[in-house]
């Protein structure tokens, strides 16, 4: 069944969407979309290091992204630079260093486009195992830290005062973000991972009235985006990542009609 590259891509995409759904909600709630960008840009460095040292790509990306994320948390406490400047600094410098390293690795042929925008053909059975096992792990950990993470998203001081240890939850969540980027980089590419995180979640916000519903709709939106995107990429011969994100955008636009209706009802 997994012999067909399209089936493999579909199974990989669906696995990724189930995980990006709930994580994406937190990215939106905690205003972390630029943070997601920074992590995914730093993933390029992880990929090049994996190639140069013949190391597993997902693991290498996971390690580098985690390191960048922890550096960021550390720098946020130590410097006076505003948060967005710090994010930009790390995002673009790690992207640049990654590209420079690629320049040195003349003995390896790189598919830069595939790296940036995702590559259906590249998904192997081994990737599927990484996505589904890694994804299950991420969801399990997220479920374990849900209460403190969610409470501190609503109000940090309240969570801290009532003994939920929000700092620990935040650090673990950061690692989970690095994890999802590591397992989804082949599907959507490093420029578009943040889109996969925030667009289905933003769509879900438009049609939900509770956090649980938003998570569920976000997962459903992600799954639909993958199915729609992959079939249309097959049909129109477009690259997989952008097609999936475009499908997600399409769903988001549809969800806007729901807002308009509810505003009308209120008036």
């Amino acid at each position, binding site marked *: 069944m997994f012999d067909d590259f399209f089936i493999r891509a579909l199974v990989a995409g669906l696995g990724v969407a189930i995980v990006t759904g709930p994580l994406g909600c937190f990215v939106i709630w905690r205003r972390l979309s630029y943070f997601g960008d920074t992590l995914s840009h730093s993933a390029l460095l992880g990929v090049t290091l994996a190639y140069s040292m013949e190391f597993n790509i997902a693991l290498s990306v996971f390690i580098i992204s985690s390191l960048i994320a922890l550096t960021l948390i550390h720098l946020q406490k130590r410097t006076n630079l505003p948060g967005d400047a710090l994010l930009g600094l790390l995002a673009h410098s790690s992207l640049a260093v990654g590209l420079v390293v690629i320049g040195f690795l003349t003995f390896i042929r790189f598919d830069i486009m595939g790296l940036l925008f995702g590559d259906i053909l590249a998904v192997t059975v081994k990737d599927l195992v990484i996505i589904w096992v890694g994804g299950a792990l991420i969801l399990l950990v997220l479920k374990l830290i849900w*209460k403190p993470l969610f409470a501190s998203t*609503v109000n940090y001081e309240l969570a*801290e*005062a009532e*003994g939920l240890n929000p700092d620990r939850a935040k650090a673990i969540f950061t690692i989970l973000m690095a994890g999802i980027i590591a397992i989804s980089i082949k599907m959507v590419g490093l420029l578009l991972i943040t889109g996969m995180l925030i667009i289905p979640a933003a769509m879900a916000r438009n049609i939900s009235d*509770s956090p649980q519903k938003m998570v569920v709709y976000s997962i459903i939106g992600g799954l639909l985006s993958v199915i729609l995107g992959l079939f249309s990429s097959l049909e129109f011969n477009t690259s997989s990542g952008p097609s999936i994100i475009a499908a997600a955008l399409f769903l988001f636009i549809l969800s806007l009609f729901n807002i308009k209706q509810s505003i009308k009802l209120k008036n």
Partner: protein
Amino acid sequence: MSSDQNILVKLKDAGFQINDKWLVKNVSLQVEKGKIVTLIGPNGSGKSTTAKIALGIYKKIDGSVEKNTDKIGYVPQKISIDWTLPLRVYDFMLLTENLDEETINNALSLTGVSHLKDKNLGDLSGGEFQRVLLARAISKKPELLVLDEPVQGVDFTGEIALYELIKKISDELNCGILLISHDLHTVMSATDHVVCLNGHVCCSGSPMDVAKNNEYKALFGEQASQILSRYEHRHDHVHTSEGEIKKN
């Protein structure tokens, strides 16, 4: 005097500074089971800061905090819920602890907002929101309640009813309450111990003692002290803008 086992939280010479500016300094106080301690003082006098020191939100502090409970209910002074987060009153009640349906209903009806259970938090008025905050804090039957201006924005009759409720909760649950308010009228009568802050502890004691105190009168004016008693005014120090205290 009460025994040490009854002490829920105890601050000893506690202080907190940001960027070399002291928000509050040398505060000593303790909250015991079944007692209500009220912090009063003008804006910027360090009331909320003191509460946050007691709660362990501020960690790099001077002095010491000794906390003997982790069953805490907190009503922060300000909370803003972002639009991106769809949150109903019901979801908010479950924020830090898993409660059953009946407990939630009871708490909401105690503060008079059971009809708002399925409403979105963003759609509540200021007073309604305040009642929900209080309901959430008491629903988990805490041993220590920290209430930072819990009745702001609540209508006048509601305000009195809520203070009565707070007093009742303290008796029923035998929990200690650290209450912050600048609403002297209603607070003073229900309080066991008053701490008057202005960057440091100006004076403290029973409500009656504090109302008679000269420093208290200097802070709040002659009229405030007439709520409870009439007394002469003599202030022995002034506060500079840097937060220092100069003797007259």
